[in-house]
């Protein structure tokens, strides 16, 4: 629909702009040989009212032939043809009205003969008005485009900022850090050597997180090294409660995947699984290749009665979004809860790196 119809105020302003046209036409056609003022008024008001809406139709050819992409000749031809035809049609309409009016009001008798010499004037006015309307519509279009581009740019900026924040937040859970520092603090008095060891483990993990987090993709081998570092730290904290089983096939370690995709899964497995079990439990991590895809699964035991067991949604949603953005439908994530066992399964395409730019 035409943008002017969207807001009644704008339509009112547009119609107001036609008042000078009416006045000018009345002035031109009034004269001893021409029309009386009243006749000119009765003729031009309906004539202009109709033409005001006819001119709005220029919106459609203007939109169909954008200034930037259409050739000059095509532009000229399209709009001038339209202007000439519409102008002619307009002056013909004037004649029709001039013939019809005396039937309604005998006082206007002979009006059509006196109008005859103004047809040329009306035609030229019609052509000019249409050309003005085309100009007006191109300005309108340009303004609309600019506003849309601005909105799009803003949206893109917000999205980018959002993604950045999420990535940052996904990297290191602050509570992990605090608990870790507390463990170090506890160790310093009694087991100074162990405390130093843990400082180094933590430093290695943080460094790897920062280094890998900034990359587009890393290999599965790199991600696994990061996870092992993470588990070594959690092992100090949780002791014998944390048990780990790993079954990663050699032909999968070259898989390229977004960084820190699996680490949050392991973190969830500890936070919502192992940490809630007094006797602890096992985390099983496995990766195997079938044809051109790799299936990675993380399995952990959990306490079905713990309310925290159900609160894994947010982290997983983040992973789902990252997968979707990168692989579209080629990647899949599935969750299975069976008794006191929670299983997350990821399926990633092996050849994704080539699809990227």
């Amino acid at each position: 629909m035409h943008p002017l119809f969207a807001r009644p105020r704008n339509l009112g302003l547009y119609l107001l702009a036609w008042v000078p046209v009416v006045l000018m036409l009345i002035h031109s056609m009034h004269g001893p040989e021409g029309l009386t003022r009243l006749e000119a008024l009765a003729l031009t008001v309906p004539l202009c009212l109709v033409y005001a809406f006819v001119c709005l139709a220029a919106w459609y050819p203007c939109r169909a032939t954008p200034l930037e992409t259409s050739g000059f000749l095509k532009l000229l031809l399209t709009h001038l043809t339209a202007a000439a035809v519409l102008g002619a049609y307009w002056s013909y309409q004037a004649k029709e009205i001039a013939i019809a009016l005396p039937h309604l009001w005998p006082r206007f008798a002979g009006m059509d003969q006196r109008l005859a010499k103004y047809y040329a004037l009306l035609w030229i006015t019609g052509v000019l008005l249409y050309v003005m309307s085309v100009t007006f519509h191109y300005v309108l279009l340009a303004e609309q485009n600019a506003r849309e581009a601005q909105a799009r740019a803003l949206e893109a900026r917000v999205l980018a900022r959002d993604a950045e924040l999420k990535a940052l937040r996904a990297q290191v859970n602050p509570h992990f850090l605090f608990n870790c520092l507390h463990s170090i603090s506890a160790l310093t008095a009694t087991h100074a050597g162990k405390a130093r060891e843990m400082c180094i483990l933590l430093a290695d993990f943080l460094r790897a997180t920062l280094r890998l987090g900034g990359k587009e993709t890393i290999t599965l081998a790199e991600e696994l090294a990061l996870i092992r570092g993470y588990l070594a730290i959690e092992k100090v904290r949780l002791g014998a409660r944390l048990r780990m089983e790993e079954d990663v096939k050699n032909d999968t370690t070259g898989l390229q995947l977004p960084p820190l995709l699996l680490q949050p899964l392991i973190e969830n497995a500890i936070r919502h699984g192992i940490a809630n079990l007094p006797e602890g439990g096992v985390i099983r991590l496995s990766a195997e290749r079938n044809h051109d895809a790799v299936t990675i699964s993380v399995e952990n035991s959990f306490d079905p009665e713990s309310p925290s067991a159900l609160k894994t949604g947010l982290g997983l949603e983040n992973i789902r979004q990252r997968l979707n953005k990168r692989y579209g439908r080629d990647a899949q994530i599935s969750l299975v809860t069976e008794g006191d066992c929670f299983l997350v399964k990821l399926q990633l395409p092996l050849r994704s790196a080539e699809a990227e730019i």
Partner: protein
Amino acid sequence: MTAERIRAVIVDDEELARQMLREFLSTHPEIEIAAECANGFEAVKAVTELEPNLVFLDIQMPKLNGFEVLELIGTDRAIVFVTAYDEFAIRAFDVHAVDYLLKPFNAERFETALLRAKQRLGGTFPAPVELASSARPPAEFLERIVVRDGTRVHIIPIARLDYAEAQDDYVALCSEGRKHLKQQTISSLEAALDPGRFLRIHRSYIVNLERVTKIEPYSKDNYVVVLNNGTQLPVSRSGYARLRAMLEQRS
């Protein structure tokens, strides 16, 4: 309560965290460590049996979290929360915890907490139980109810609660054919339950709406609801109006 001799219980699921508290307490001969617990169940058992007057309580633990433990053991002793999570501090304040130690902390900070605990032990204690249940964030409803039976703890997930009945200072929580008594008023329980799932149908009854199979007239102006296990519960006049409105809204 004797001010000279203090019996303390340490509750934390991490060995290193317990070790740290042990170390800090070792310079205080007036404090005896009565027990160390690695989860919520052990904590409730130890506190009930040993009746310590000071408890160092972690919040994120297996089985029961720190607040649930507190609800079961009451607040008539000095509680010092020890946690890496700062977002529970306001709740801890609401349940009149003596202090809130954020991991990691140093010896000086620990001494401050201990000093506050000693001051509290010389003073008076606020009324227990209702405090703990009032300290829930207002937008969140109970997901499970914890009940103590001697030194044993029962956890009743909200979905398994059929109805609750007021009995003097207690509420009887009926779940899967068993009744569990808990020291709580029925009004505070009502406030903690999701009003979309539970309804106060009578001065003495709250019912799980999922369990209601029909409403039957009992006498003139009186109704009973029949639950899917056949139990009949009386409905007061205002309870009937609420029930009708609720069921109409649902259908």
